[in-house]
C-alpha cells in the first residue's frame, strides 16, 4: 500500500500581497484560530506565518496533558470547553487525536495542600467538572506504583482525582488542525518570518515578512514563547511576561504500568505513560528568562530524585530523551488575550506558560469569534491585559509565584 498521497496542508504556494487576516506563529493556538475562523465564520483568506515549521515550538514540546481543574471560575469554564472539544475535533477533522481520558491524579502532600485542593475541586464541581478529593489509599488503588509510605520526603496525604482529564497526541492536533484549516482555504506559510507590523491612522495596515509585504487589517500574534518579544519588537507593547525554559523527558518504552497522569506540586513533577509506553515526565522551569530551549543537568537529576521517591518502581527504568520548550509566564499564571485595545486590528493571545496545549481548542474557537466579530466574547474578557494595571491579578495560583522578584 504505497499510495501517492497529497501533502497534508496543501502545496507550497506563493505569498499573496493581501489577506483578510494574518496570524503570526504556526503553533496550536494559531492553527486552531484559523481553523475556527474558516469553519465557523467563513473567513478563509488567512495567512499563517511560521518562521520554522508548524508545531516547532511548544506545540511539539509539551507533554500533551489536558485537564480542566484550574483554580478560578474564570479559567475552569474555558478549560472545560477545551476538554469537551477533543472528541468533537477528532470527528470534525477526521483525524485521530488519540484522546486518552485516563484521568489526572494530582498528589497532595500536606494539610494545607488538601485545603487548596478542596477549593479547586469545589470550583470544578460547581462548574460541572468531575473532580474528587481522595485519600492516599484510594490514590494507591488507582496507581499501584505510588509510594504512600511515610518514609519519603513529601509523604502523600491524598490526591485530587480528575477523571475527564488525560492525554492527547500533540503532534496529531497540529497536523489535524493544519490539514483542516488548509482544506478550507487557509494558507500556511512555513519558513516565513514576520518582521514587522505596519499601522496607519492608529490601526493595523500590513505585515512585513522576509518573503514580502502583506496588506491586512487584522493581525493576531499567537507565537507561544516568542510572542512577548515579537509584540514588543513589532508593536512596542510591553507585557508582564517572563519567558522561561521548561523541560520534559521520556523513559524507554514500557508495557503499561501507569494508567493515569500523576502529578505532584511538592515534588515539582508529573508523569504519565504515553501510548508508546514511554513514561513522560517534567514539571518545573529553570527560573531565568531565556530563549534557548536547552535542557540542564540539574533538571533531569531533580526529576529522577522526585520519581524515585513517589513512583519508586521507576528506579529500574532509564531516561532516554530530554528536551526543552519555552513557557511565557505571567505573574498570575493566567494568559493574556486581548484585541483592538492597544491598536485597532491588533490581537494577541499569549502568556500561556505551560497551559498552551490544554487550552488551544477552546481558545481557537473564542479568538476566532473575537477576530471575526471585533467583539470580545465574555469568556475571554477576564484575560485582558489591563487587569495588571488594575491590580486584579487572576488568582490561578494560590501561592506567590516566585520566578520574578515581584513577590
Amino acid at each position, binding site marked *: 500500500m504505497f499510495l501517492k498521497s497529497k501533502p497534508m496542508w496543501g502545496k507550497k504556494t506563493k505569498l499573496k500581497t493581501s489577506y483578510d487576516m494574518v496570524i503570526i506563529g504556526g503553533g496550536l493556538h494559531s492553527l486552531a484560530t484559523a481553523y475556527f475562523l474558516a469553519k465557523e465564520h467563513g473567513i478563509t483568506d488567512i495567512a499563517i506565518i511560521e518562521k520554522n515549521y508548524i508545531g516547532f515550538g511548544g506545540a511539539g514540546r509539551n507533554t500533551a496533558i489536558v485537564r480542566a481543574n484550574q483554580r478560578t471560575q474564570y479559567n475552569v469554564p474555558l478549560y472545560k470547553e477545551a476538554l469537551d472539544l477533543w472528541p468533537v475535533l477528532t470527528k470534525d477533522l477526521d483525524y485521530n487525536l488519540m484522546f486518552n481520558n485516563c484521568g489526572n491524579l494530582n498528589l497532595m502532600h500536606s494539610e494545607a495542600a488538601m485545603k487548596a485542593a478542596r477549593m479547586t475541586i469545589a470550583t470544578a464541581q460547581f462548574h460541572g467538572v468531575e473532580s474528587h478529593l481522595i485519600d492516599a489509599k484510594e490514590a494507591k488503588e488507582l496507581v499501584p506504583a505510588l509510594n504512600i509510605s511515610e518514609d519519603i520526603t513529601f509523604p502523600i496525604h491524598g490526591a485530587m482525582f480528575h477523571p475527564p482529564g488525560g492525554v492527547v497526541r500533540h503532534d496529531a492536533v497540529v497536523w489535524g488542525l493544519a490539514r483542516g484549516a488548509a482544506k478550507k482555504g487557509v494558507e500556511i506559510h512555513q519558513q516565513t518570518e514576520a518582521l514587522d507590523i505596519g499601522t496607519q491612522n492608529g490601526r493595523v495596515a500590513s505585515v512585513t515578512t522576509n518573503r514580502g509585504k502583506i496588506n491586512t487589517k487584522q493581525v493576531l500574534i499567537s507565537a507561544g514563547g516568542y510572542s512577548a518579544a515579537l509584540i514588543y519588537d513589532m508593536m512596542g507593547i510591553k507585557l508582564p*511576561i517572563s519567558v522561561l525554559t521548561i523541560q520534559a523527558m521520556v523513559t524507554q518504552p514500557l508495557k503499561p504500568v501507569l494508567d493515569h497522569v500523576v502529578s505532584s506540586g511538592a515534588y515539582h513533577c508529573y508523569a504519565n505513560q504515553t501510548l508508546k509506553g514511554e513514561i513522560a515526565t517534567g514539571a518545573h522551569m529553570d527560573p531565568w528568562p531565556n530563549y*534557548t530551549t536547552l535542557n540542564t543537568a540539574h533538571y533531569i537529576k531533580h526529576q529522577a530524585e522526585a520519581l524515585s521517591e513517589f513512583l519508586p518502581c521507576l528506579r529500574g527504568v532509564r531516561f532516554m530523551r530530554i528536551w526543552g520548550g519555552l513557557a*511565557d509566564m505571567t505573574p498570575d499564571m493566567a494568559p493574556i488575550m486581548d484585541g483592538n485595545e492597544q491598536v485597532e486590528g491588533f490581537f494577541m493571545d499569549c502568556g500561556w506558560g505551560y497551559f498552551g496545549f490544554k487550552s488551544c481548542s477552546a481558545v481557537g474557537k473564542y479568538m476566532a469569534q473575537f477576530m471575526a466579530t471585533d467583539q470580545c466574547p465574555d469568556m475571554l474578557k477576564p484575560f485582558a491585559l489591563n487587569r495588571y494595571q488594575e491590580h486584579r491579578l487572576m488568582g490561578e495560583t494560590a501561592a506567590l509565584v516566585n520566578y520574578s522578584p515581584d513577590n
Partner: protein
Amino acid sequence: MALTITCPICGKRNGYEFKFGGEEKGPRPDEKDLTPEAWCEYVHMNKCVAGVQEEWWFHKDGCGSWFKIHRDTTTNLEKEVKDENRVQKAKSGGQK
C-alpha cells in the same frame, strides 16, 4: 545549558546559586502623579529581549548581594561589560 554567573564578590559560580531579579528598569519612580499605567509598566512589564539584556541577580547561596550582569538570552552566556565599580556596587547592595 549550564548557566554560570559571575558574582562581583565571589567570582564565577554555578547559576543555581543565584536568583534572577528581573530586567534592569532603573530606580523606583517618584510616587507623585504616578499613573496606574506607569506603575504597572515599572512593576510588571518586560521587554523580553531575545539577545543581550542587562539584568539583576542575587547571590542567594553565596554572599547575598544584588548585582547586574549582561546576558544573552539566546545563548545563556554572560557578556563581559567593563565596570570598575562592580565590586563596590555589589557590596553596597547594587548601585551607589
